[in-house]
């Protein structure tokens, strides 16, 4: 079986700035992988390369064994945006947002059929938001908002789910709910890639972790990723140490 996420020799450049350099990454199906790095480490760029929002200068990206464009057309890729990227005042209900996951398979006017409504009901049930389905999306708490977007990925039938900073602005109890939800999805064979600069949820959530700083510095078990020597490199502390020593 091929890897759910397969990235080879990926280099992305914004003008003069190199955002990612020779990145190689394999994530097997049904795994939860934490993507750790500081701001500007290339986490968002890697997500954009996976969703096809940026054109790589070099290298290949494959999602669920397909090139990204085909994976997108089959709606295999789900995306949970970070909080700041969403207009929470937007006049849509929770149910509207989850229904958007089904658009790819609907007719040209995207009128939901019975099968679509059933899939949306199931997804809402799975993330425990059935009772809040009629609420405007901004009237949910931080954790509930994340779950609504995860439900959109479930309704979509995504095999690979990308989450951008899912624990920012989320309280401890909601965090545990989200961890349980994502672990459950992974048990069903969905591959989950979670970007985070916040490390404490990682051991309970992820099977493996990638430390990113323009290049992949480390990819392996979470426990080892959290060792100080690895983290120091990911967060640029080794440079400070050396400067202090020198």
């Amino acid at each position: 079986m091929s890897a759910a996420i397969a990235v080879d020799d990926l280099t992305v450049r914004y003008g003069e700035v190199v955002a990612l350099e020779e990145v190689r990454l394999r994530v097997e199906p049904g795994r939860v992988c934490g993507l750790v790095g500081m701001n500007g480490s290339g986490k968002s760029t890697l997500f954009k390369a996976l969703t096809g929002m940026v054109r790589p200068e070099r290298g290949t990206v494959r999602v669920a064994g397909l090139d990204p464009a085909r994976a997108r057309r089959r709606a295999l890729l789900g995306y949970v945006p970070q909080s700041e990227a969403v207009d929470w005042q937007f006049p849509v209900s929770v149910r509207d947002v989850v229904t958007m996951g089904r658009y790819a398979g609907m007719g040209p006017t995207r009128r939901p059929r019975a099968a679509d409504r059933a899939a949306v009901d199931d997804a809402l049930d799975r993330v425990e938001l059935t009772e809040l389905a009629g609420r405007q999306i901004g009237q949910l708490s931080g954790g509930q908002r994340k779950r609504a977007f995860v439900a959109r990925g479930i309704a979509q039938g995504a095999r690979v789910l990308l989450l951008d900073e899912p624990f920012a602005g989320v309280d401890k109890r909601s965090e545990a709910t989200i961890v349980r939800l994502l672990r459950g999805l992974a048990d069903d064979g969905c591959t989950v890639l979670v970007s985070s600069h916040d490390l404490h949820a990682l051991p309970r959530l992820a099977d493996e972790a990638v430390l990113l700083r323009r290049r992949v510095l480390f990819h392996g078990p979470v426990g080892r990723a959290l060792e100080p020597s690895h983290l120091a490199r990911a967060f640029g502390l080794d440079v400070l140490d050396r400067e202090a020593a020198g």
Partner: protein
Amino acid sequence: MSPVDLLLEPLSYDFMVRALITTTLAAVVCGLLSCWLVLIGWSLMGDAVSHAVLPGVVLAYVLGAPFALGALAFGVLAVALIGAVRDTSRLKEDAAIGIVFTTLFALGLVLISVTPSQTDLNHIIFGNVLGVSTTELLQVTGLAAVAMAVLLAKRRDLVLFAFDPVHAHAIGLSPRRLGALLLGLLALTTVVALQVVGVILVVAMLIIPGATAFLLTDRFGRMLVVAPVVAAAASVTGIYLSYWFDAASGGLVVLVQGAVFAVVYLASPRHGLLGRQLTARRRRRQLSRSAAA
């Protein structure tokens, strides 16, 4: 004169009937479109495109082509130029917009000044709804019908585009194409609305109704009802006022829409200024009462 006569008497003139039909059509289609423009944050873009179509409309007049064609061509040109200036210079988008649309608008003014014409081309700038001919009315009806049909048929895709273009892209839809569709409809709608209020004030009809509806409801589906209804009612009121007081029709249409917005801005139950303050005061009082208890 009784109040009923005040309403009915203008209808005995054909030009008033044509004016009221044109105004209602323009208000409804602008009201629909404005719901998306306000939510995406394209007010300035709407301003730009609606002004930039002026030279296109004048050239279409000179060549005897449909106004919509000229408007569409220059709407596309404006968007392309704005993108080019933004992407290939160190300027930010608002500066690029400001430069491109004023220049194109100026080109339109110059073209008008050198075009010999029996009809007063300044009507394109200020609107002339009381002088709309039957042919013009038919054109406006056709354009409005096309724009409305497309907007309503693609409304869910356009909402997705406005709400989360990244997700649209991730499931294989093209945000770029949806954006282009919306901008094309913007150019068409401008042609409809400029008959009523003129190029200068079209942007008001493209923003105020959607903004008013957004302060009244948290449901997009309801915005699509509230915005056109409010826009049509306000615009028809404006035309009547213009008839009774013999004042500028385009100006009054926009003035009434602005007045309705002001009332809603102050008094909307959930999102109005007064409503929000009342809720905040009630919450404070409850807090202090529970603190005292």
